[in-house]
């Protein structure tokens, strides 16, 4: 390979590093200021004196200057499971705050429940910090979907008023809330009650929302909600939406049973100008994103057992592999670089997105609800640092499988209580550093799985 080609490969690699999940800690300013004052003190008083003072301060608990708390990031020791700074195991059963689901960002949980459209909860202690009350009702299965630059994005009912015929139909607003105070910054009405992950999503410099019509995506100013640009597609077309590294993409196909192909269209996040990057055969179903790729499934036969697993990047480069579904599935999720599926029989499988090959199939270690129930297991979460994929069932059973082999490395049970009638949705599992947050209904339990010890 010529030097020029090697340089290009290095350039591609650096730009392809998935940095989306890298986020600065929320208390960085405090850490910097404390670390600096300790260093200045140490410089002025001499190292020995400073060390003595810090030790005494630690014993007697003198303010931050004498605290033994380390502002410098501490690398975990050999044991992979390390509690987040300031975290202790906790359980919270604040009714109304979490039934609809939660999102972890920094050291906070942002949840939606029957009484609050957004409630900020300290992820270290489980204490509620502030909340935004529902607009008459909060009975969906939506929850805050993004936090960026100090703003939380969530949904609420558009109106509290009954219609003229006396019925109540709340409608849906997209809502931006200040993350530090809970003040509502703006709301924008959505044309339908779609509150799924494709209804609105953060992109570079804006929030892309499916408004004002069902065939339009609009880029809204993140601080004011004002429209910056909009892209509308033709009647008879359906478009799925995804975001790769801040750039929005549409996957559009004719709204018929067997469309010829699915167009992958890139929208310029600054202007909204559309560029078709490729067309893939048939109807491609977007099932997630992984790094710089969208992950798609397409049926190859009538009974939808023989599938085609395709990954496509923002330039339209794609790779497809055959993928066969065995038995009835309780769930499938793109988790990191793997497709993790769980069968109704209780077996978890991991497929490589790069090769399409099955990497392992092992007992999932939790109870998978039957096909005739509304509930299912939580979407699995992966700790890449620990190399473990975690599962949670509606009865509170937890299981951790080795990401590389599928062997069970941990199991536990948490008491998440009985779900309130009307909120019999699936439980939710979240990762906060190495700690887990298991949610069922409004009950939240945070624990540290001792994997790797």
């Amino acid at each position, binding site marked *: 390979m010529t030097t020029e080609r090697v340089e290009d490969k*290095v350039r591609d690699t650096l730009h*392809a590093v998935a940095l989306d999940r*890298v986020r600065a800690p929320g208390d960085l300013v405090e850490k910097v200021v404390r670390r600096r004052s300790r260093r200045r003190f140490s410089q002025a008083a001499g190292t020995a004196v400073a060390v003595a003072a810090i030790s005494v301060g630690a014993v007697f608990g003198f303010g931050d200057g004498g605290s033994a708390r380390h502002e410098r990031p501490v690398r975990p020791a050999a044991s992979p499971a390390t509690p987040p700074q300031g975290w202790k195991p906790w359980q919270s059963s604040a009714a109304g705050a979490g039934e609809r689901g939660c999102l972890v960002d920094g050291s906070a949980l942002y949840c939606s429940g029957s009484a609050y459209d957004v409630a900020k909860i300290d992820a270290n202690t489980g204490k509620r910090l502030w909340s935004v009350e529902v607009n008459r009702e909060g009975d969906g299965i939506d929850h805050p979907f993004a936090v960026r630059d100090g703003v939380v994005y969530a949904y609420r009912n558009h109106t509290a008023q009954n219609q003229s015929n006396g019925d109540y139909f709340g409608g849906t607003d997209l809502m931006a809330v200040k993350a530090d105070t809970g003040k509502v910054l703006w709301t924008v009405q959505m044309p339908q009650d779609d509150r799924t992950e494709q209804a609105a999503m953060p992109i570079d410099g804006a929030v892309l929302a499916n408004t004002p019509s069902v065939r339009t995506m609009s880029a809204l100013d993140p601080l004011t909600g004002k429209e910056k640009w909009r892209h509308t597609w033709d009647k008879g077309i359906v478009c799925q939406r995804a975001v790769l590294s801040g750039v929005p993409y549409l996957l559009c196909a004719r709204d018929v049973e067997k469309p010829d192909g699915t167009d992958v269209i890139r929208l310029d996040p600054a202007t909204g100008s559309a560029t078709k990057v490729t067309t893939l055969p048939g109807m491609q179903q977007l099932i997630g994103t992984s790094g710089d790729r969208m992950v798609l499934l397409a049926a190859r036969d009538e009974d939808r057992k023989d599938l085609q697993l395709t990954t496509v990047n923002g330039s339209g480069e794609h790779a497809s592999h055959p993928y066969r579904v065995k038995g009835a599935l309780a769930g499938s999720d793109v988790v990191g670089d793997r497709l993790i599926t769980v069968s109704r029989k209780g077996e978890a499988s991991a497929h490589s997105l790069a090769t399409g090959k099955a990497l392992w199939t092992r007992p999932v270690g939790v109870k998978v609800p039957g096909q005739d129930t509304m509930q299912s297991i939580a979407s699995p979460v992966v700790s890449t640092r620990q190399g473990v994929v975690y599962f949670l069932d509606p009865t509170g059973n937890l299981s951790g499988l080795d990401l590389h082999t599928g062997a069970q490395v941990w199991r536990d049970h948490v008491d998440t209580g009985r779900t309130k009638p009307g909120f019999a949705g699936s439980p939710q599992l979240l990762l906060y550093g190495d700690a887990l947050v298991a949610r069922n209904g409004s009950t939240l339990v945070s624990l540290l799985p001792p994997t790797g010890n």
Partner: protein
Amino acid sequence: MEASSHDEFREFVEMRSTALLRLAVLLTGGDRYAAEDLLQIALMKAYGRWARIEQHEAYVRQVMYRQQVNRWRLRRHHAETTVPVLPDAAGDAAAGPDSDLRIALWAALGRLSNRQRAVVVLRYFEDLPESEVAALLGCPVGTVRSTAHRSLAKLRKLVPELGPERPTERIQSLGYTPKEVQR
């Protein structure tokens, strides 16, 4: 520091710290802890002279780059860092013909020295010319050129799929073209 400067500093950190941390992650070869440490050090230095700095982000970036090079100078025996688990690996999920190469390259970038990686990030991520890299790092252009050359040579060694360097290119990279290869 005056209250207004402190507020300005806080606002800057809130707005730019994630982007700067991402750069630090690249500079440290994916080491999240070293990256936060590097960013904290740069912000500490900036905090002390905040009111006197005109271009805050440029200043913090420069401190990060120089600090990374200084770490290499101070701790040469730790020049090669190994990362037990590569976080958010480069296109580790990316299927396609180049995905294996990208994964191998990202792992190899983690094994460059801090100085080599700083030069590689400046040249190929920030796309800065050699003269600007030299100005940022406070070293001669020739040092940047030779460091970049050695970095690529090391990457070739660590990632055999890149193949060996061609003899002609190797000679040209030294800065002159001897008669036997002149055309």
